[in-house]
């Protein structure tokens, strides 16, 4: 491929003069036989001009570089900054007239020449913009030139341009805006143009590193990327957020940098994969979820997206429902670790609360207070941490009012789903095999119980959880009562006298719940009231155990010794007379806890009733 250097203005002139010359030669005629040799010579020169000359001129004239140059020339008028082109009819560039003449024999290495020339093109546009922003040039001219450069497909990606210059221009833009040299509307257009130039200037990882360093030094640059993030590769926002987070000092983020970082985090949060990618780096996660100078709303969105947004629709092996991604579980594991040593920021707590919702189904399956919590997905396993560490994390979440509401709502929705499953089981049962129905209910609600136990463990860290209780219970009290009623009817069957007893206790507790959760009764939500409700639920559950033997068989407790049944009945009678008798309640719970089957049964009923949520 032949390389050319040429002057576009002269090429244009040469082209026109060649056309003129051909026209003139075409008009030369003579019928005199003596003119035949002259006409032959004229024919030869026409053949040369129309063939070799014009063919070559047109190749240059129609080449991408020349097309761009002519476009600039048309828009701006003759520009002496871009007057010499180098073209090999495929890869092409522009250089300044002042550049020393490049002999054809020296064009064997075109790439350096082209890089140099590309830089000249870009700088020409940037210079025009700089002049416009400083008030010495026309903004319209600069914008038209930049528009040509950013829109042309002929300019190769990765043209060399100094990001430092773009940063300076951005600073100039802010200065011009502050000093009234440019209006807000124009400033938006210039910023958009700068975003386009910056995006075009990024061609490699090294460029992204450069951009990251520049973003730390100039918050305006990362804000620009965030506002125009669609122009940039996804890796750009991640890289900038990482650079800013890593590069910030120990005293927190400067307000302007924090604001820019927040914009980036919000952009990243909209893509769960990006969010998890950012937060799987331990040092980044630690900084973002513990530094109170990072925007709380942005962190909330980011964490919620990273934990819960990466949940897919496929079913896992050991539970029904959506499956979290490994990355999202790794973020949760990271949060668990951090929560053991650091105080999470409010945004992190709220984001964790929101993010936990979608993963509760999987989490419940793996919760066991006797061993570390590990979640298996396929052949991979993520160790979330010790049970107590997870409880610490939940405890921190509960220690923030909005986070508590969010978590309560999430748990409530999760429990509602499980209760609907239970209702479906009960609805399908004809009562002929209540033992099987009970086991199915127990299996369905075991996960709920485990999750609620985790919350209970967090509660025992002296966290006031009124808001959690309220949020979780408010939406589903009717669901709980319906389920309780169906359960009681199924389990008691024709045992008439017992039905009355159980119904009385259930109604009593239900009335307490309803009272507690009605708008008028909101203020009444308190420890004492919740304790009463808990007593009634426990009493209701125990009343089924001490009922007729067929009922115990029906609920899988026919192995109980008469002594246990008698002791439970005794304490239950005390509670019926005085629901505030704590000793009786403690005695009942001790008896129930001592027998694994009774303990499981009580957990099941608690899950159905929501008793745990009430304290």
């Amino acid at each position, binding site marked *: 491929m032949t390389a050319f250097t040429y002057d576009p203005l002269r090429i244009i002139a040469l082209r026109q003069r060649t056309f003129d010359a051909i026209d003139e030669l075409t008009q*030369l005629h003579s019928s005199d036989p003596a003119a035949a040799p002259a006409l032959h010579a*004229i024919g*030869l020169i026409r053949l040369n001009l129309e063939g070799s000359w014009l063919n*070559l001129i047109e190749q240059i004239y129609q080449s991408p570089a020349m097309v761009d140059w002519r476009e600039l020339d048309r828009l701006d008028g003759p520009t002496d900054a871009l007057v010499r082109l180098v073209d090999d009819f495929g890869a092409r560039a522009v250089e300044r007239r002042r550049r020393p003449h490049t002999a054809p024999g020296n064009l064997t290495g075109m790439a350096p020449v082209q890089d140099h020339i590309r830089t000249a093109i870009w700088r020409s546009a940037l210079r025009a913009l700089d002049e416009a922003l400083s008030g010495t040039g026309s903004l319209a001219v600069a914008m038209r030139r930049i528009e040509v450069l950013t829109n042309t497909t002929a300019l190769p990606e990765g043209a060399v341009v100094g990001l430092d210059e773009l940063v300076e221009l951005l600073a100039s833009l802010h200065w011009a805006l502050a000093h009234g040299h440019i209006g807000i509307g124009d400033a938006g257009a210039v910023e958009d143009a700068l975003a386009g130039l910056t995006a075009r200037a990024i061609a490699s990882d090294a460029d992204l590193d450069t951009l990251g360093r520049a973003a730390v030094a100039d918050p305006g640059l990362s804000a620009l990327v965030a506002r125009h993030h669609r122009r940039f590769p996804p890796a750009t926002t991640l890289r900038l957020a990482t650079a800013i987070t890593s590069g910030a000092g120990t005293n927190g983020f400067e307000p302007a940098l924090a604001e820019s970082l927040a914009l980036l985090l919000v952009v990243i949060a909209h893509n769960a994969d990006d969010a998890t990618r950012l937060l799987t780096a331990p040092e980044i996660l630690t900084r973002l979820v513990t530094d109170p100078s990072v925007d709380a709303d942005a962190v909330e969105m980011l964490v919620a997206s990273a934990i819960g947004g990466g949940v897919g629709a496929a079913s896992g092996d050991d539970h029904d429902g959506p499956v979290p991604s490994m990355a999202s579980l790794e973020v949760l594991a990271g949060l668990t670790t951090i929560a053991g040593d650091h105080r999470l920021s409010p945004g992190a707590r709220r984001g964790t609360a929101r993010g936990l919702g979608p993963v509760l189904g999987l989490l419940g399956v793996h919760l066991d207070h006797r061993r570390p919590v590990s979640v298996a997905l396929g052949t991979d396993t993520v160790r979330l941490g010790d049970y107590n560490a997870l409880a610490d994390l939940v405890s921190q979440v509960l220690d923030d009012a909005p986070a508590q509401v969010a978590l309560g709502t999430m748990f409530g929705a999760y429990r509602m789903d499980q209760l609907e499953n239970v209702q479906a089981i009960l609805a399908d049962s004809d009562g002929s095999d209540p033992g099987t129905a009970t086991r199915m209910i127990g299996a369905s609600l075991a996960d709920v119980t485990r999750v609620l136990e985790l919350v209970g463990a967090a509660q025992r860290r002296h966290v006031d959880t009124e808001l959690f209780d309220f949020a979780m219970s408010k939406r589903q009290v009717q669901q709980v009562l319906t389920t309780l009623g169906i359960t009681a009817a199924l389990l008691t069957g024709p045992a008439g006298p017992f039905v009355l007893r159980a119904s009385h206790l259930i109604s009593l507790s239900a009335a307490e719940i309803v009272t507690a959760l009605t708008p008028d009764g909101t203020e009444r939500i308190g420890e004492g009231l919740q304790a009463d409700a808990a007593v009634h639920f426990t009493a209701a559950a125990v009343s089924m155990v001490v009922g007729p033997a067929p009922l115990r068989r029906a609920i899988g407790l026919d192995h109980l010794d008469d002594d246990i049944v008698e002791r439970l009945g005794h304490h239950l009678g005390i509670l019926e007379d005085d629901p505030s008798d704590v000793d009786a309640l403690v005695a009942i719970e001790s008896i129930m806890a001592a027998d694994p089957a009774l303990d499981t049964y009580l957990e099941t009923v608690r899950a159905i009733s929501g008793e745990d949520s009430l304290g």
Partner: protein
Amino acid sequence: MNQFASHHQHPNQLRHRAEMLRRLAIRLDSIRARDLLALAGPETWDSPRAELCRELLRANLAQIDDAGRRLRTDARLLEDRAAAAEAAALAP
């Protein structure tokens, strides 16, 4: 038939032909194609292919120069013939 055609042409016709050949020669002296060399130097374009174009144009212009000289020579021959024809007609 040779390029000077008939010997029966009238001297005025011969002189007219000579005049036309000279005019063509004069036009060839100043054709615009001659300016192209000045416009197509290395400062306009530079490459082996551009140099080839210039060489071809130089050769073409040399042919044009030859053609112009030949036109002028032929014009003189036609005028000489016209003069000879007039002299022959006046001869007793």
